[in-house]
């Protein structure tokens, strides 16, 4: 079944101020590369009256290191540019390279990836299918088909960049018609499949700011095929160590198992001050994977994803312990 976009008006502002003014209209929607939004519009999951394209705004382009040594990545940077950039931490480049396909990475943007809509087997379907099965909570109905007794939606956060940005302590600069603010990426997301981020609709993500990082970091992505597929599970870890190999700081984040990337706070606290021996990694893995409850709403069953969670957490911790963060997948 072929699908066409619903009708809309496209506006292409050239300044951020202009875009912020246009997006304050509640019937308008931002479009970056459109690789997430256009398929959803074709399936009539959303039908904005106006699309505000960010493609012509120079302020959203480019990657630079600022005076404080932070890596500043414009929201309009494509994933292909990110994957190729010598300025960004290697873990960010390799996470970008593991997203979607070469075609998509040439169009998809960083801002769109961080704002990526949550996904679920019951919503990412053509309109006719959803009509026939009954619209779910996220689709304006009154039942979550994944967890029918639940009062909220369990659609999955599937962005590969967010777990990495959180592990690296990143923040986002948001601009709206009435001002701007900076928010930690960690606080940008919330565990609700419908209201999955805390940004208001009128706010534009302008840049991702990553503090200078000298520790060791990795992102392990699990998926069915070695390319193109969304994550079934993603584990990001970034840590610093003292001369005695004791951990002085760590962030451990599990992606694609809930409606937001999950920080493993208990495991992080346990690891501080410890050397990453096998026993320590085992206990941290237990602490980090226990709260993870994947639902049956993507490729492969939830039990399989639950089983694989400790496997990937252990591998990630072993990698940063041994400084062998050359990357998980054998990509060229």
């Amino acid at each position, binding site marked *: 079944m072929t699908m066409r*976009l619903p009708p809309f008006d496209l506006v292409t502002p050239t300044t951020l101020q202009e875009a912020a003014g246009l997006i304050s209209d509640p019937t308008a929607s931002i479009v970056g590369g459109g*690789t997430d939004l*256009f398929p959803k519009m074709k399936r009539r999951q959303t039908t904005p009256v106006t699309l505000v394209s960010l*493609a012509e705004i120079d302020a959203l382009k480019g990657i630079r290191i600022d005076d404080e040594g932070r890596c500043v990545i414009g929201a309009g940077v494509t994933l292909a540019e990110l994957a190729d950039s010598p300025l960004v931490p290697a873990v960010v480049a390799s996470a970008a390279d593991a997203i979607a396909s*070469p*075609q*998509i990475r040439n169009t998809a943007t960083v801002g769109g990836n961080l704002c990526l809509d949550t996904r679920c087997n019951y919503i990412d379907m053509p309109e006719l299918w959803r009509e026939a099965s009954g619209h779910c909570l996220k689709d304006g109905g009154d039942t979550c088909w994944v967890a029918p007794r639940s009062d909220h939606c369990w659609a999955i956060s599937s962005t590969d960049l967010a777990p990495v940005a959180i592990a690296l302590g990143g923040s986002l600069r948001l601009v709206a018609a009435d001002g701007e603010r900076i928010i930690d990426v960690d606080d940008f997301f919330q565990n609700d499949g419908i209201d999955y981020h805390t940004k208001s609709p009128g706010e534009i993500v302008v840049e991702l700011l990553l503090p200078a990082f000298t520790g060791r970091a990795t992102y392990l992505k699990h998926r069915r095929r070695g390319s193109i597929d969304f994550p079934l599970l993603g584990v990001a870890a970034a840590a610093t160590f003292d001369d005695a190999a004791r951990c002085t700081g760590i962030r451990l984040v599990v992606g694609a198992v809930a409606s937001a990337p999950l920080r493993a706070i208990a495991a992080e606290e346990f690891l501080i001050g410890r050397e990453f021996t096998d026993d320590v990694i085992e206990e941290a893995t237990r602490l980090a994977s226990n709260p993870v409850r994947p639902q049956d709403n993507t490729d492969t069953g939830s039990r399989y994803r639950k089983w694989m969670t400790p496997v990937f957490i252990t591998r990630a911790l072993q990698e940063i312990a041994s400084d062998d963060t050359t990357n998980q997948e054998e990509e060229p």
Partner: protein
Amino acid sequence: MNRTHVNCTVNGDDVDFLAADGISLLDALRDELGLTGSKEGCGTGDCGACSILIDGKLNCSCLVLAPEAEGAEIVTVEGIADGDHLHPLQQTFLEGAALQCGICTPGFLVAAKALLDTNPDPTETEIRYALAGNLCRCTGYDKIIRSVQEAAVQLREVAK
């Protein structure tokens, strides 16, 4: 819905057409310009049958809006042969039987060209990753990969 007058070049020719805002570049190429080589397999970025080059970069034309092509240089499968002389990729796909129904073929040819334009001597793994956005549901991938490898050899010979 607005209509935009779009000027761009397609396979080296200056073209112009009128496009409504919600029309994909794929539909504009096929329906306005009569270039039906690019196919629609899914319309959602999953299959790569609609692959084209925009300013030298591989894209899914089903996910690009026609008005966004303003000023762009576009190459479709119709533009990769040299007149009546097939591109080495087209020739090796034919000789290597790298197609059955052929609906995926234009996308594979354009994606493979995008790879060989920037990497004349790719490893098999590099070819597989470069073609990961293209699905084929009848031939299977081995004949396609072999044909790309053979075309790479031929192109390197020519470049010598």
